[in-house]
């Protein structure tokens, strides 16, 4: 991904307008911001956003996607540019791989394994040692995608329990709940997962892969970008679980960051801004890449993983899903 362009995060209600060949972001209670369009790789809108046709035309020309998160903090949808990066031959190869039960199951297996590996790495290596060996065993014996996902769920449940032991009372998860998240911890995880999903979608859109043809999740099920669901599995622990534990450990998350009812919770305005900032900074963290021989940002790791999958589909090169190596 280009070093020159960056992601823009909109955290307060605003209107995006086109001014000649560039963008203006208008906000109610603050001055307008002029943004050179070549500086934008994509936009994550975490608050109410207005835009019109002329903006969309400009965004499309520069291949900029806009990801929208709804009022409740869940992923609401994306404004995607036309599929200029997909290539017929790659998509066909991808479909062939996905249709072959043997190869697609192999990919699904390695995705589940890598995901669990990352969870264990982030949460607690010692306490999750046993669940992880159990999971590896059932991965070996599993015969279908549904079976794999069941095994992953079991592993995840023990991971959630371990996470609870490291959180203050009011942040504890008490099992994962979604739509709506039941408590503060779950609200945090859902929100960060939504952002990760959006970022992976951008990354996949830059590669020739089709975002709907998947290996672990059902292809195009419920009009979701299933491939993005597959690929974001490995990155969710890196962002969500890791940030939650870190921010709780540092006492950075406060009760006023959440709006809590008896049976549901969401991030408050202040909390949303705070979390988005934390996530944004986290995506910019760089690590030394072994084979590329340079530093890559977490953000770029998503793209590189999608490229590795492209290579697997097109050329049959071995695909090793992302594992935290540092």
């Amino acid at each position, binding site marked *: *991904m*280009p*070093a*020159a362009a960056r992601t823009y995060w909109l955290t307060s209600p605003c209107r995006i307008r086109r001014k000649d060949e560039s963008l203006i972001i208008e906000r109610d209670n603050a001055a307008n911001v002029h943004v050179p369009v070549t500086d934008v790789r994509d936009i994550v809108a975490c608050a109410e956003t207005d835009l019109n046709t002329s903006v969309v035309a400009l965004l499309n020309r520069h*291949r900029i996607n806009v990801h929208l998160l709804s009022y409740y903090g869940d992923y609401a949808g994306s404004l995607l540019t036309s599929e200029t*990066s*997909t*290539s*017929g*031959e*790659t998509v066909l190869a991808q479909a062939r791989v996905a249709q072959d039960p043997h190869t697609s199951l192999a990919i699904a297996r390695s995705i589940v394994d890598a995901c669990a590996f990352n969870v264990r790495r982030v949460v607690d290596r010692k306490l999750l040692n046993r669940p992880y060996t159990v999971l590896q065993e059932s991965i070996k014996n599993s015969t279908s995608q549904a079976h794999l996902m069941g095994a992953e769920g079991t592993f995840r449940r023990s991971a959630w329990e371990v996470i609870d032991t490291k959180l203050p009372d009011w942040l504890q998860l008490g099992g994962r709940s979604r739509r709506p998240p039941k408590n503060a911890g779950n609200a945090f995880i859902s929100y960060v997962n939504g952002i990760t999903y959006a970022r992976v979608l951008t990354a996949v859109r*830059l590669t*020739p892969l089709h975002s709907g043809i998947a290996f672990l999740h059902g292809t195009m099920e419920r009009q979701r970008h299933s491939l993005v669901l597959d690929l974001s599995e490995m990155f969710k622990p890196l962002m969500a679980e890791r940030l939650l534990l870190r921010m709780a450990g540092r006492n950075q998350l406060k009760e006023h960051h959440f709006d809590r009812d008896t049976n549901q919770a969401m991030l408050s305005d202040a909390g949303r801004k705070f979390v988005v900032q934390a996530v944004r900074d986290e995506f910019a963290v760089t690590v030394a*890449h*072994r*084979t*590329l021989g340079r530093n890559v940002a977490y953000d770029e790791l998503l*793209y*590189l*993983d999608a*490229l*590795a999958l*492209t*290579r697997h589909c*097109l*050329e049959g090169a071995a695909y*090793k899903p992302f594992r935290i190596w540092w």
Partner: protein
Amino acid sequence: MIGYEDVGGVHIKYLYHCRRQLWLYLRGIRPEHLNTAVQLGEAVHDTSYTRNTPVDLGAAKLDFVDGGHWVHEVKSSGRPSPADEAQGRHYCQRLHRVGIDAQGAVLHYPKTRRTQRFPYTPEAARQADEDIRDALTVARAPASPDRLARSACRGCSYTDYCWTE
């Protein structure tokens, strides 16, 4: 897949630079727009030599042709390479096929303020034809060619694709 008439300058350039790159390019792997160096090159191209009109030959698009029928090609790099020469030769061959007797190629290297002239001889014509056939062979290969040595990939916009693991 592409045929004899579809082979353009970029194909010939990639053929000399890296066969794997050509193979991938033909299969729709186009990461160039993500590369900062490429973006800079495009910007330089858009803003320099604006008085000359590019000539569009369908598959090939060359910078300009002067009154003496010499093909001019501006290169943003400082170091001449066989790929540049092959590209110029290919444009001459394309012009001959549409009935213009191109005299040869002039390659401009503004960075070092040098130009190089390559007259279009029968020998060059044979070579140009051979290049096109080579490109077609690479295009039809079912498996991708191997990667070059890692050091040869420096600055290539396909590096991320080829070397991520």
